[in-house]
């Protein structure tokens, strides 16, 4: 077992444990903070896959934006639910059964694939891939259309989010 494998196993264990804490923590604030740890563990996993660009994007987008947004929503929606009482539905055993079954089926089918035990060796150079990705995202033969659609989607999501979350009562009193 070499160093990279140790790093992978540590990151995987930390993120899986904190993911379990995300779904089982009684206090929503703790769940949100465990989510940050999970996302950082997944960023380390991206690094072991030689995809350091996506590790940085993961930190910036998920930890920097999405986790902060989630923490804000937790704080904005906690007046009634003072974190006491059960945070899990009564039928959680069925949900756990479904999750375990999905896991077993996924791993079972993946194990049938012949490339399942392939060792991922080091790619020639990491920056080359990033250069190609940047070119492909703006080239008409590549992904310029999905790229532009993604920007339109983001603008639509921003406008939609502000429209949905705006306080109507303030408008009426004005």
């Amino acid at each position, binding site marked *: 077992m070499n160093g990279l494998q140790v790093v992978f196993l540590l990151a995987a264990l930390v993120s899986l444990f904190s993911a379990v804490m995300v779904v089982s923590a009684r206090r929503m604030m703790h769940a949100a903070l465990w989510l940050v740890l999970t996302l950082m563990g997944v960023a380390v996993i991206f690094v072991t896959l030689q995809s350091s660009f996506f590790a940085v994007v993961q930190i910036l987008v998920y930890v920097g934006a999405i986790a902060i947004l989630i923490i804000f929503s937790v704080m904005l929606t906690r007046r009634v639910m003072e974190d006491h009482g059960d945070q899990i539905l009564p039928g959680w055993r069925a949900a756990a059964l479904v999750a375990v079954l999905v896991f077993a089926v996924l791993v079972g089918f*993946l194990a049938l694939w012949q490339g399942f035990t392939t*060792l991922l060796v080091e790619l020639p150079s990491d920056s080359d891939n990033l250069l190609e990705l940047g070119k492909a995202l703006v080239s008409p033969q590549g992904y310029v259309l999905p790229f532009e659609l993604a920007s339109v989607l983001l603008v639509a999501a921003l406008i939609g989010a502000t429209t949905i979350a705006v306080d109507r009562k303030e408008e009426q009193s004005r």
Partner: protein
Amino acid sequence: MIPIAWYLIFSAALFCIGLFGALARKNAVAILMGIELMLNAVNVNLIAFWHYYAQIHSRPYVHGLAFTTMVFVVAAAEVAVGLALVISAYRRRQTPVVDELTLLKG
């Protein structure tokens, strides 16, 4: 020198933990956290398969990376709209618990 199986099993486990969270939690924000975990598991899978294909073709291979970028964008858009919905529902009904949002129930 990590087998691709480790990545696939890890992301399957992360996906199933997120699935459990999305199914079993009461709080709408916690359900969104479960969905975020599932999307992250999908990203790990996409990057692992991108690495696999770049390795067996031994040339730069950008399609997996472009797909992952799109998943990131959609995840960001989804969580923005989802949390806006949760806050809007909370403002009207004073609860983030999805079981108590029964306005559409017949």
